[in-house]
């Protein structure tokens, strides 16, 4: 054998020796993303630059669709409203959710599982009914407003009705604070207590420890929660439509273009503007987080030190209960509404059980579809989000930030824009015909919801000291073994938190489904939408209550079942 042959052989040998498993495993999600994300997304971007209408015209790209942002007061006001609303919602959601996460994680209190399971419910405000329930409570004829005014007017205080920008911010903060609550709860319970103990032994007082140790440790998770709040607020159409009066936001403008003018390209352009704003927020969040290092989960662990003082416990319980009761008001309203025919004026009228009695005959296959689609999509999302997060955080390939943005984009884009991208790519005369199938819904769900797991896992990985994985590799474990036995258990709580959010929000997904469903794949929210449109609020409410109950039960069981294994997974060996 000549020299070149030897060289070649040794090169092959080296290639064979190299651990290819990670690359094989990474190839799957990347291929999936290329096919089902980059392609439809690319078409959407082209749409935005294609001039008003519906056709994608490569020969005539331009900025026509963006012109209104320069010329129209309506567009500028809506842009400003969107920004103000989302930024304020982030601030208030953090102010509400962060202390709550701390309380549930660090204070010895009963019913933790209950708090965690109920805590997710405000996020799944069923479309439109949720916003209407704020009107029922705090509108001009709202029952709570009338009641409070009866108390306070003699004192010269008048509670205003909820309409306007302040009302939108109020409703959105209370809807989305669970993102901050749940993610910061995860971080507070995962952060290494030894750091705090060390500070305490060195004589630092509690406020100082809080400021310089505890809070900085959970910043990645607060950041992840805050960015979710920001994005969801930027994209929410229902709350501003019902509570905003004539204060509009970007999603309102998108809806106008699609619903009134069938002008999808202009809608895509408006959507792109909100993607850019969100991208800016995302970069800011990354910058704030990457300014410091987070070495927190490390090999030696001890139990979390819980506050046991009676005062701390009382304050924590009262605070958490209060927040949940206020945030659950729309859900409580929906539950009450589901037992009545109408709720017009201060109190509901016409008690009935008919709304529930009719459910089985109306929606049995829809219930199956909803559960099946939400479950399957959540699991796929868990795998996909986890792997993509690992790739961007640990492998840091060139263009990781692009991958990050691409995964976030369908989450930021309005559902109707994503749905149209999917229809254009996979229906009509598409090469891969998926129109009307479960698969098209499934994939659109996965693509649109991956960011929950993705962001949550990215935050967990940021908190996780890379030396743990390195020492496993040095000790001779291969990549797969290391991932399975070291990384995965440590980020499991992040994956679960993200998956639960995915499942809960998918159960009430409407904006994509409404364009993609067929008679066979119709889901529960489609029926709720129809009922609300037709004025059957009671029936819609009954169905919404079923969704809420499902989410509550699933989350509660998950928390109970996995609660111990999550916490034990942090104790290595």
């Amino acid at each position, binding site marked *: 054998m000549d020299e070149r042959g030897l060289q070649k052989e040794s090169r092959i040998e080296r290639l064979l020796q190299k651990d290819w498993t990670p690359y094989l495993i990474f190839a799957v999600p990347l291929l999936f993303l290329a096919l089902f994300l980059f392609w439809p997304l690319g078409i959407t971007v082209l749409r935005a630059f294609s001039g008003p209408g*519906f056709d994608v015209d490569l020969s005539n790209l331009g900025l026509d669709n963006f012109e209104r942002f320069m010329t*129209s*007061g*309506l567009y500028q*006001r809506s842009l400003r409203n969107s920004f103000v609303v989302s930024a304020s919602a982030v601030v208030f959601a953090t102010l509400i959710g962060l202390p709550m996460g701390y309380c549930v994680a660090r204070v010895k209190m009963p019913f933790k599982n209950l708090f965690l399971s109920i805590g997710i419910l405000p996020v799944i405000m069923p479309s*439109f009914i949720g916003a*209407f329930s704020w*009107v*029922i409570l705090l*509108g*001009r*004829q709202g029952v709570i407003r009338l009641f409070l005014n009866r108390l306070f007017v003699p004192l010269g205080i008048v509670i205003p009705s909820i309409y306007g920008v302040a009302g939108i911010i109020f409703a959105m903060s209370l809807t989305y604070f669970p993102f901050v609550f749940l993610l910061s709860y995860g971080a507070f319970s995962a952060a290494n207590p030894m750091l705090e103990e060390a500070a305490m032994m060195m004589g630092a007082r509690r406020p100082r420890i809080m400021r310089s140790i505890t809070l900085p440790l959970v910043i990645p998770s607060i950041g992840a929660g805050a960015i979710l709040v920001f994005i969801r607020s930027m994209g929410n*159409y229902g709350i*501003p*439509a*019902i509570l*905003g*009066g*004539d204060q509009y936001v970007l999603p*309102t403008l998108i*809806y*106008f273009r*699609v*619903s*009134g*003018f*069938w002008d*999808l390209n202009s809608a895509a352009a408006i959507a792109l503007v909100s993607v850019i704003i969100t991208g800016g927020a995302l970069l800011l969040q990354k910058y704030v987080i990457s300014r410091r290092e987070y070495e927190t989960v490390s090999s030696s662990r001890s139990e979390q030190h819980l506050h046991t003082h009676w005062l701390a416990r009382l304050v924590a319980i009262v605070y958490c209960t209060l927040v949940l009761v206020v945030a659950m008001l729309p859900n409580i309203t929906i539950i009450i509404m589901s037992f009545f025919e*109408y709720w*017009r*004026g201060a109190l509901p009228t016409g008690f009935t059980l008919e709304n529930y009695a009719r459910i089985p005959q109306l929606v049995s296959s829809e219930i199956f579809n909803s559960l*099946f689609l939400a479950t*399957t999509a959540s*699991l796929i999302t868990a795998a996909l989000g986890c792997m993509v997060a690992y790739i961007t955080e640990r492998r840091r390939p060139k263009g990781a930030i692009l991958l990050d943005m691409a995964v976030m984009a369908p989450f930021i884009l309005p559902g*109707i824009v994503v749905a*149209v991208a999917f*229809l254009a790519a996979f*229906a*009509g*005369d598409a090469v891969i015909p*998926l*129109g*009307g*199938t*479960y*698969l098209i819904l*499934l994939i659109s769900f996965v693509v649109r919801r991956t960011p929950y797991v993705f962001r949550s896992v990215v935050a967990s990985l940021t908190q996780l000291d890379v030396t743990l994985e390195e020492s496993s590799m040095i000790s001779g474990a291969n990549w797969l073994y290391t991932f399975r036995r070291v990384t995965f258990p440590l980020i499991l709580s992040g994956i679960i938190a993200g998956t639960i959010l995915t499942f809960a929000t998918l159960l009430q997904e409407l904006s994509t489904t*409404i*364009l993609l*469903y*067929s*008679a066979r794949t119709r889901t529960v929210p*489609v029926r709720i*939408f*129809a009922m*609300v*449109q*037709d*004025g059957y609020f009671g029936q819609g409410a009954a169905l919404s209550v079923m969704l809420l109950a499902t989410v509550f039960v699933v989350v509660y069981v998950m928390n109970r079942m996995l609660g111990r*294994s999550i916490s034990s997974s942090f104790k290595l060996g």
Partner: protein
Amino acid sequence: MTRRVCLAVLALLVSAGMVFAAGAPEDAEPDSLTVWSAAAEDEADALVAAFRAQYPEISVDVIRAGSGELLTRLRAEQPNPSGDVLLGIAKEAFDANYDLFTGYVAAYHDDIPEELRDQAAVPRYYGFSMPLQAFMINTELLDEQDYPRRWVDLIDERYAGELILANPALSGSAYAQIYMMHGLYGFDFLGEIARQATFVASSTAVPESVARGEYAIGVTGEGNIARYMEEGAPVTYVYPEDGTGRRFDASGIIDGGPNPEAAELFMDFLTSEDAYQIIRETRSRRVVHPGFPGPGPLPALEEITFFAYDAEEAAAMRDDLTDRFSELIE
């Protein structure tokens, strides 16, 4: 152990998912029909039931969504749309998307007045109902002598903060309202109404808000008013004395749909007296078929003052008027 069981269950679910998901798209059986409906659920169901009584061998699927979503979907699914008939969207929407529909002379063609269908020799759409725009008044908030009687009354300062309308960019009906006001009183009038009224971004919010007493006066389709009146909400109607537009919404056959023959049979049925009877009774709609009285509590056509509504001009002005009007809302 628990973990292993969990994993097994998950694996089962996922594989079940894959089996379901891999199923073929809707196959084009000759005996089926897919109706895309912007009409109400019970309405579409009642129509389909009556249709199937005549043609039991045809199975009918109904896809329900708003007209904006349905038209967007229709565009996106070109050139092989999965629906056959589009039910109950505004005539203006048909005109603006004329190329997506196919012409057919329905069996009861001659019964439908010419001005209430596509005027081509082979019409692409036939009238479904007439959603006349009227004032919806909350009777607990306003006494009868205080009701607005004409469009021009709406800017009376007595009603400041009590007036709710849908933003004209939302739908053909909402646009028709400002088009009529513009035609009657000019653009400056629109400025005054923009200051006076709240123009919300949800069409359903208008009747619901008036019925709840959040606002005293709304401008909406008469069918909404009738439905709330029949449900016992404290509301009533006022048809503006200075006239309302004679508009209609329609149904048509989707070009390139999977079941053209069944679609034609369904169009025949939709233009029959039986179908109009159902449309009139299920949702208290005013139907385009002559000879039917006003639906439910609503007055007959003869008692309503009409405004010379020029649909072509309205369509031509739409983008510009909506844009200019939008700038007035603050």
